[in-house]
């Protein structure tokens, strides 16, 4: 093997210099990476398949290492524009799930929940499913059957989920787990800008002078983005972090506002009041580009720092500091995530952040704007093409007659056949409890861990007469099903995802699926065929679905028409809207000062703060808040089986302040109005004394979501995960961490078993300091 000196050159020239960063389309290319014909390829006869990580909304580029036998066996960093070789521990270990011993390789079936699963043929599983769908719909109407999709699916598959529900199942009840992710931000962006996506690419972070991060533990949830954050700081940008915990990002912030959970809108209103009082608003921008400013200004005046400081539990001076830093910066950006979105006023919280950007004119410029950090890989793309209960492909409204007509034409159905809008994911579970929905198919989701108020979720699912699940591991939810279809991982099919920048990237197939495993596309098409809608689902592969999706989105705000697989492979990603095949895409919005509302203006919205839905009282005086840990992803169905990640964080904990008198590792019972569970205490000064934090990746009896409240934001219907009332007590014994369910005939991965018996993590989880000093 000969070394290619140019390979080294390419790596030393990583475009971290902001002037070389990719604010425009020129930067949208794979910046080289390791040539597949160099390095390992010569050494071991292996190939490197360029693709992206399957996990969060950053969508880091990576190569999967494939051996001579065609099996994925490793990962190699890829010099893609988004991540520039960087990967987090989840990304590095992701490949291990592809050929994991827990993979489901044959359909599982049982006729009642009293029976054990049996491995059956595909025909038997499909026939049983179709007969149950027909039985339930004939007896109780089409809407008695529901479909829940997932935002980790490729966009092609999410498009199919929406079409399958409306055309094959003919039900209005379809929704997806992105409902638990960033629909609040989506709702706010739609209200204010008429478009549902971040305004700026990640690379704009490098160009900003003031970066405000609200409710986002970037260090653990989007670790690769820290290079952009530090890059901005290297250039002297001010970093402001709003978070009740001192996270790794907050630790190095210039201003860390540790506000009380559930008080974000009061805080941001107050920041705006200071900006107004100090004459730091950009009146010329507001005159030319905004509506509603007078009302917003009047409302903000009701939140002087003295009042907001009481509500938020932070010093009034900090509010003034934040206002000055943000408004005085020549270019400022605000990025937020679930911390302000997972609330019963999640949409309003996001609107207050948008009001800040609009009032200061920090919109639509390099280094100035707003963004929302997507939790799931396709959290952005997953809702764009009809998987959400109220949306049709291209972000069209299912309530709009013109939009309905357009889609019916593409789908070849009568408008009368297209169902009305459905309900949200949590509401569907309540309907299952009430037996209004009696049958359900779940695709790529695990509500038993991810939905709040576990008891309600369990009751809802137990009440269904038929439940089928698509998954590649037997998730906690799949273990409740009657039929489980074994489907492909992200490495066994091709398709696109849209990341948090709305940059569409292409995932490539690295290996054939194991025998017995089918793609989600194949299963949906086959079910549709057996339901009599085969002619509408004659898709051979993802590419065929993508071509229909492109056409279906043409002319809408979410226009994918100009995006093709070939262009994605050449460019490394294209941001929508992209209406023509020679259009470069739209990485940054509103550069011409116009929004996507017909009047081209930002519609600023008045927000009144209201307390969280779960009231505090003497019995429940503290706030429980939840979040992620860097080693695990969402419900943990994928990551709780990977040895290295389990070893890193084998179990959840309850993070409490030293003032409560707990010793590190001691059992602490966290009690809410939904129930109580016992966790080892992680005693740290890095959290507010009135707040408890629990990571949510585990099932009962160590499930944060057995404790959280199923109150919803009235507009986005997102649950209020980030705050509920609780108390903490000393307990006798820590609850055992359950093993993930394993299908019959499979053996759980031994490495994970060993770690799971440990009462405490081998080290402090993710650098969360503990007060136990040795």
């Amino acid at each position, binding site marked *: 093997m000969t070394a290619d000196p140019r390979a080294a050159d390419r790596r030393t020239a990583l475009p971290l210099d902001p002037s070389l960063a990719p604010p425009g389309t020129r930067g949208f290319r794979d910046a080289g990476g390791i040539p597949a014909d160099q390095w390992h390829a010569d050494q071991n006869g292996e190939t490197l398949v360029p693709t992206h990580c399957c996990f969060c909304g950053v969508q880091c580029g990576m190569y999967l290492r494939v051996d001579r036998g065609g099996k994925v066996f490793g990962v190699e960093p890829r010099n893609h524009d988004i991540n520039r070789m960087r990967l987090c*521990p989840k990304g590095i270990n992701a490949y291990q799930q592809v050929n994991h011993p827990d993979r489901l390789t044959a359909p599982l079936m049982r006729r009642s929940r009293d029976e054990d699963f049996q491995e059956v043929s595909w025909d038997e599983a499909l026939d049983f499913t179709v007969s149950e769908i027909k039985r339930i719909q004939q007896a109780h109407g089409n809407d008695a059957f529901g479909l829940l999709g997932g935002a980790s699916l490729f966009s092609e598959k999410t498009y199919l989920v929406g079409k399958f529900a409306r055309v094959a199942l003919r039900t209005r009840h379809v929704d997806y787990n992105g409902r638990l992710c960033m629909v609040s931000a989506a709702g706010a962006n739609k209200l204010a800008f008429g478009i549902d996506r971040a305004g700026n690419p990640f690379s704009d972070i490098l160009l900003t002078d003031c970066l405000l991060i609200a409710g986002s533990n970037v260090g653990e949830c989007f670790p690769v983005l820290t290079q952009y954050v530090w890059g901005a700081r290297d250039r002297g940008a001010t970093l402001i972090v709003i978070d009740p915990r001192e996270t790794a990002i907050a630790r190095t912030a210039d201003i860390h506002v540790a506000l009380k959970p559930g008080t974000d809108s009061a805080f941001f209103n107050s920041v705006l009041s200071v900006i107004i009082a100090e004459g730091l608003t950009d009146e010329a921008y507001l005159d030319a580009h905004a509506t509603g400013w007078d009302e917003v200004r009047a409302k903000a005046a009701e939140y002087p720092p003295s009042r907001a400081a009481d509500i938020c539990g932070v010093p009034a001076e900090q509010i003034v500091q934040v206002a000055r830093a943000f408004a005085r910066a020549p270019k400022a950006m605000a990025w937020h995530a679930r911390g302000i979105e997972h609330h019963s006023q999640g949409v309003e919280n996001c609107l207050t952040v948008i009001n800040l950007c609009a009032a200061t004119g920090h919109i639509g410029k390099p280094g100035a704007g707003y963004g929302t950090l997507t939790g799931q890989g396709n959290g952005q793309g997953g809702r764009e093409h009809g998987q959400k209960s109220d949306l049709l492909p291209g972000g069209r409204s299912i309530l709009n007659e013109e939009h309905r007509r357009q889609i019916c034409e593409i789908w070849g159905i009568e408008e009368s056949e297209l169902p009305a809008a459905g309900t949200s994911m949590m509401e569907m579970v309540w309907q299952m409890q009430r037996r209004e929905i009696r049958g359900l198919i779940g695709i790529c989701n695990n509500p038993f861990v991810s939905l709040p108020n576990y008891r309600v979720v369990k009751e809802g699912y137990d009440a269904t007469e038929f439940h089928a699940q698509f998954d590649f591991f037997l998730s906690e939810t799949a273990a409740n099903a009657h039929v489980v279809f074994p489907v492909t991982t992200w490495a066994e099919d091709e398709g696109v995802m849209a990341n948090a920048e709305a940059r569409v990237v292409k995932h490539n197939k690295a290996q054939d699926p194991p025998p017995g495993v089918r793609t989600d596309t194949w299963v949906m098409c086959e079910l549709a065929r057996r339901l009599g809608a085969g002619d509408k689902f004659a898709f051979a592969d993802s590419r065929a679905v993508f071509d229909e999706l492109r056409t279906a989105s043409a002319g809408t705000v979410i226009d994918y028409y100009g995006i093709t697989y070939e262009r994605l492979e050449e460019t490394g990603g294209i941001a929508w809207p992209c209406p023509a095949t020679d259009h470069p895409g739209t990485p940054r919005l509103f550069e011409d000062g116009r929004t996507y509302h017909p009047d081209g203006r930002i519609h600023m919205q008045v927000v009144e703060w209201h307390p969280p839905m779960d009231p505090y009282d003497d019995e429940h005086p503290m706030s429980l808040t939840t979040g992620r840990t860097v080693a695990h992803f969402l419900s943990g169905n994928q990551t709780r089986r990977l040895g290295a990640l389990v070893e*890193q964080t084998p179990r959840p904990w309850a993070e409490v302040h030293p003032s409560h008198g707990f010793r590190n590792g001691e059992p602490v019972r966290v009690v809410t109005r939904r129930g109580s569970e016992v966790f080892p205490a992680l005693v740290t*000064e890095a959290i507010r004394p009135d707040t408890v934090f629990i990571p949510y990746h585990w099932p009962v009896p160590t499930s944060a979501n057995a404790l959280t409240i199923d109150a919803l934001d009235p507009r986005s219907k997102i649950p209020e995960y980030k705050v509920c009332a609780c108390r903490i007590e000393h307990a006798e014994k820590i609850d055992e961490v359950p093993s993930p369910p394993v299908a019959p005939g499979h053996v759980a991965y031994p490495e994970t078993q060993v770690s799971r018996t440990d009462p405490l993590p081998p080290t402090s989880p993710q650098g969360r300091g503990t007060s136990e000093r040795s």
Partner: protein
Amino acid sequence: MMGRTIFIDPGRCIGCQACVSACRECDSHRGKSMIHLDYTDEGSSVASLPTVCMHCEDPVAPCAEVCPADAILVTADGVVQQADTTRCIGCANCVNACPFGVPKIDLQAKLQMKCNLCYDRTAYGLAPMCATVCPTGALFYGTLEELQAERPGVQVADTFVFGESEVRTGVAMVVPADRVQWPVPGGLPVVEINGKDVRR
């Protein structure tokens, strides 16, 4: 001036352990990580710090110096290799000699293992796995000039004091610009013995 090497910036470390996972993927010791993470101010902060082999230059690699089997090779470019499997006797002298607590002994294999700066990658112009993937840049591989071009005003130290001993290393540490820069305390700093400043 130092050539291409690893620079550790504790101010950027988020404790994510991507370096630990990446090290495990490195072909030269696939399956085992040669990095560990330290939590420097437990209980009051989330601060963390990755520990990799510092590839000591002066005195030349204490681990190699004390090895009775001459199993630890120091290459001409200053990389302190992990023990030669045909020579290592698993005596753990190197573990005791290392001031940074880096080498590990696989007791079953009676073999020392440590970071070899991904010699299999760096020899071909690639960065070590840990520094390649480090999402925050807390581990940076390149020259000092490249580091400073990317992070204006950054200060680094490659000399550490352990009591009476000074150790100069091939791997450097980013230090706050407003703090004492030379040398950086490596262990518990002994400043004074019998009224005499032993640092100089």
